[in-house]
């Protein structure tokens, strides 16, 4: 320890601590601009000068380490004079349009200027020297005004070390110094991903969102992002019942980082297109109706349908709604609808995870916490374009890689993460099982498997070893289309590091062998002993804000809340007792089967909450034909969608910002939403609408008055949520399920000491080729997926003009060499045809797509990729194969 004296106070600090940190540790504040987090101090703003007794000149406290016996004075006349001079210089180069500035009221520079009165720097050089440098407004979401920039470099550090995108440089020198992308590229034309994380750290208004209300006193509400499964904390600024800005803060899941959707795509909340009254289809047209009329009609139709037996009623719940909404929905379908035909869109994304990991480990969720990335030595990413689909997790993976951890990426496309990977395996679509088998073979060949772990904590290992004897690295590498040496390198890198996590997503799950792929991931983790320890695990990245929660709440045909199987008599009995209601006994249909049932007329009444199956489900034409059959369809949503075109009744619901309730993010963390604005018109809360229908039919058990009560009921019947309550969340408790008591924070990582199912199970999964194989008529293979800017079927994101500017229309990515063969130029419209349908889209050249492969985002309705998808489902999880579709193209 080092002992020094600061302003007469004695302080002991660790060796290497700067004077600044030492001073702050005893409550002495020293002003700084360029000092930022724990990054290497640069001492460039000179605001933090202090006197070190005996030194020849004033020292920058941010970069000077404390030394034994040092005597520091932070507030002498000389220090004050120096700071006054620095401030004068900074002010001489700063535009003072404070009254219309984004940072009005929270400007760090103004804060210093308030101190300036003390420093007597206000009447400095004035502003006569300010050059009017051009403002960069090329990005759709934010502007950079160099005339307000104080060159503190924080934006560069965020871009470089936290978002890890390396866009910004300090360019030129002296008075010409500016912070911009290289070679004078405007921000809007650079590779900037518009995360806006630079805005979050800018001390002045140099970086500002284009859309904000200056000079206003706003209420701020902390809530949870409605987009992907990362579950970032958002702070909404609300003026006149309208969100005017979103800002991030330190701590929580995202630690001040957000992505373009979270930070900028909030326009949908106050969109004039919001549904404000119930609508009833009369003479083929949806017309406004009263709640009484609409609910009575729905109740009547439900009564009629359920008279025909349990298979005549079905409900699609929503991964975008809260846990409370999902709980009430499945309870409603089961007890009032008297059927187990309840499912939601997890069927289309991670059904294979829920099924596969339940078999391997006993529970199908991310086993690590997101912040465990910070301690991993190796990260293996496969089937996930993480930086686009889960941007903040993507950034955290890049941060960790920057700090020296190894990164392995296996993907059919050369995604952004591939740039930073130690090994990148560009595998053919649908070859995850041979990829993982080949890696495991290589690990066994090298004798680096965790034999003790396999013997003590798993079962089925012997059979698995026998199966592995039938496999060679070379054979697997050939199926995957990669170099066997690369496969070995990746395998050994993963196996030999101490702490490692696997991150995967739709690229593994959305295949007719999806469950096998997931179990193979589980095998790899068990074989190397990388599960059940901190920093080691298997991490399915869940797609939607509350898809984890919707599964947890039992919006699945065979599962009641907490994955309690309805087929188990004791479970059914427990719920019947708790609810005081009878449970159905039919085998529930899955989402894809429900749509088929609507098509063949067995399902007479379909209730869709916050879902858009016409766009999100495979084989759009098939879905449309099914919905056209004239059965009664209720859609509860916030906007008219492609699916409401087939609805008989449309019911207006709340968005996230109008709700109290909880979302469960991908790391099993239950987080509290707080209401920020009032809903438009007569819209109602999702759970409230459901409850009103239940009450109309005279059902008990739906007399909830708020979301908190619903969570109390959830906690009472769901073992993994036993300790969850709104009150705890309000108090700031971090809770990750399983949370078995009120004083437990749950589990940061799963399967410590014992797997949920007891012993881990080694599944045997051999390669099953995708159903679709390129042939003469359809020589190309299409993959579908998500892009950064859009979410789900665009119903929310497309209301933000900037998003539309960047990604307003569907496109198809093609390798330039493949395009040449078809005489296609970049930007040409091409027709893509599969056995199931045909769409037209603009081409984008991407050399990172393999030859003979195509990629299309699935978000779009018109000419959307799902016109092309469909085919054989995974036999266990019933997930459709979105990732391998044989197609042909023509100009």
């Amino acid at each position, binding site marked *: 320890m080092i002992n020094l004296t600061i302003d007469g106070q004695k302080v002991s600090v660790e060796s290497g601590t700067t004077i600044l940190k030492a001073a702050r540790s005893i409550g002495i504040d020293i002003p700084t601009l360029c000092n930022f987090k724990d990054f290497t101090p640069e001492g460039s703003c000179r605001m933090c000068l202090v006197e070190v007794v005996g030194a020849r000149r004033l020292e920058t406290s941010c970069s000077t380490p404390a030394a034994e016996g040092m005597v520091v004075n932070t507030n002498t006349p000389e220090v004050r004079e120096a700071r006054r001079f620095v401030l004068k210089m900074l002010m001489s180069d700063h535009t003072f349009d404070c009254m219309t500035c984004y940072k009005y009221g929270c400007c760090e520079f103004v804060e210093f200027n308030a101190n300036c009165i003390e420093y007597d720097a206000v009447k400095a050089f004035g502003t006569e020297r300010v050059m009017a440098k051009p403002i960069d407004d090329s990005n759709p979401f934010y502007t950079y005004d160099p005339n307000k920039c104080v060159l503190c470099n924080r934006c*560069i550090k965020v871009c*470089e070390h936290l978002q890890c995108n*390396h866009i910004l*440089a300090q*360019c030129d*020198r002296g008075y010409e110094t500016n912070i911009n992308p290289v070679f004078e590229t405007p921000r809007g034309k650079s590779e900037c991903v518009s995360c806006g994380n630079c805005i979050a750290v800018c001390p002045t208004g140099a970086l500002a969102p284009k859309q904000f209300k200056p000079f206003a006193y706003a209420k701020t509400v902390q809530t949870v992002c409605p987009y992907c499964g990362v579950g970032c904390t958002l702070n909404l600024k609300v003026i006149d019942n309208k969100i005017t800005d979103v800002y991030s803060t330190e701590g929580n899941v995202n630690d001040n980082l957000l992505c373009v959707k979270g930070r900028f795509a909030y326009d949908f909340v106050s969109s004039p297109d919001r549904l404000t009254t119930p609508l009833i289809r009369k003479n083929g047209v949806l017309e406004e109706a009263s709640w009484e009329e609409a609910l009575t009609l729905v109740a009547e139709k439900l009564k009629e349908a359920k008279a025909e037996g349990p298979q005549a009623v079905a409900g699609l719940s929503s991964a975008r709604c809260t846990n409370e909404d999902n709980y009430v929905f499945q309870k409603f379908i089961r007890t009032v609808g008297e059927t187990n035909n309840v499912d939601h869109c997890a069927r289309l994304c991670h059904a294979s995870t829920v099924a596969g990991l339940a078999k391997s480990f006993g529970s199908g969720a991310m086993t690590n916490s997101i912040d465990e990335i910070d301690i991993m030595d190796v990260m293996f990413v496969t089937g996930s374009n993480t930086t686009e689909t889960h941007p903040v997790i993507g950034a955290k993976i890049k941060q960790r890689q920057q700090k020296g951890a190894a990164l392995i990426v296996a993907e059919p496309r050369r995604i952004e993460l591939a740039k930073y990977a130690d090994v990148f395996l560009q595998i053919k679509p649908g070859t995850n099982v041979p990829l993982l088998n080949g890696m495991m073979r290589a690990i066994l060949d090298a004798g680096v498997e965790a034999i003790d772990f396999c013997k003590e904590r798993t079962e089925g290992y012997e059979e698995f070893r026998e199966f592995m004897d039938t496999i060679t690295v070379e054979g697997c590498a050939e199926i995957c289309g990669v170099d066997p040496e690369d496969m070995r390198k990746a395998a050994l890198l993963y196996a030999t590091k101490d702490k490692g996590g696997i991150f995967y997503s739709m690229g593994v799950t959305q295949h007719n062998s999806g469950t096998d792929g997931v179990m193979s991931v589980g095998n790899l983790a068990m074989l190397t002993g990388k599960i059940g320890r901190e920093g080691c695990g298997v991490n399915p990245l869940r797609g939607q804000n509350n898809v984890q929660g919707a599964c947890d709440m039992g919006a699945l045909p065979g599962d009641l809340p907490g994955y309690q199987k309805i087929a188990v008599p004791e479970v059914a009995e427990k719920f019947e007792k708790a609810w005081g209601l009878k449970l159905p006994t039919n085998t529930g249909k899955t989402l894809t089967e429900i749509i088929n049932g609507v098509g063949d007329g067995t399902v007479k009444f379909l209730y869709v909450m916050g879902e858009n199956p016409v766009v999100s489900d495979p084989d759009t034409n098939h879905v449309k034909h099914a919905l056209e059959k004239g059965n009664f369809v209720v859609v509860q949503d916030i906007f008219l969608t492609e699916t409401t075109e087939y609805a008989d009744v449309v019911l207006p619901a709340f968005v996230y910002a109008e709700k109290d309730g909880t979302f469960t993010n991908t790391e099993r963390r239950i987080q509290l939403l707080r209401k920020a604005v009032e809903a438009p018109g007569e819209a109602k809360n999702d759970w409230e609408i459901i409850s009103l229908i239940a009450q109309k039919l005279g059902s008990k058990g739906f007399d909830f008055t708020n979301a908190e009560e619903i969570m109390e009921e959830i906690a009472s019947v769901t073992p993994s949520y036993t300790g969850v309550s709104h009150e705890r969340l309000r108090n700031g408790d971090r809770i990750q399920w399983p949370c078995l008591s009120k004083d437990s924070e749950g589990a940061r990582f799963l399967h410590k000491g014992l797997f949920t199912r007891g012993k881990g199970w080694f599944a045997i999964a051999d390669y099953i080729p995708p159903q679709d194989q390129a042939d003469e008529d359809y020589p190309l293979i299409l993959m579908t997926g998500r892009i950064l800017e859009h979410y789900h079927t665009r119903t929310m994101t497309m209301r933000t003009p900037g998003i539309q500017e960047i990604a307003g229309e569907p496109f198809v990515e093609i390798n330039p060499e493949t395009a040449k063969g078809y005489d296609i130029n970049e930007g040409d419209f091409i027709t893509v045809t599969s056995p199931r349908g045909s769409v037209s889209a603009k081409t984008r050249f991407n050399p990172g797509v393999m030859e003979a492969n195509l990629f299309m985002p699935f978000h779009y309705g018109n000419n959307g990729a799902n016109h092309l998808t469909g085919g054989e489902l995974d036999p266990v999880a019933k997930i459709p194969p979105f990732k391998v579709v044989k197609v042909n193209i023509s100009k």
Partner: protein
Amino acid sequence: MAELIPVENLDVVKAIVAEHREVPGCLMQILQETQEKYGYLPLELQGTIADELGIPLTEVYGVATFYSQFTLTPKGKYKIGICLGTACYVRGAQPIIDKVNGILGTAVGDTTEDGKWSVDATRCVGACGLAPVMMINEEVFGRLTVDEIPGILEKF
């Protein structure tokens, strides 16, 4: 002066990086040698240096634009430098610059399209006794008048 290497040939810059990469703080040296060989430091070369060193392009660019000795645009076969030091300036350097630019159709910092000329304003070249001074490559022209300019340029 040796013939410049075309930017398409990245082998040379890669060799330069390979030679110095192990030395801490090697970026300056690499940029200097690269500029010597190629004449300037366009995106392709800076990008290659960044990739080869495994550092962000932004870092390379920051250094390349900080030091005035580095140039991002190709210089002409004949590099005209007109001194704008105090002595030259008061003895009429500005009209000289204007004349040169008038004849060549350039602005300060430009290179003519045919690649023959580039025009820069320089700081004091240490020949104040000869002010105003212009340099063309290594040759110094002093005590200039505007009328002399066309004749001087014609010699090249």
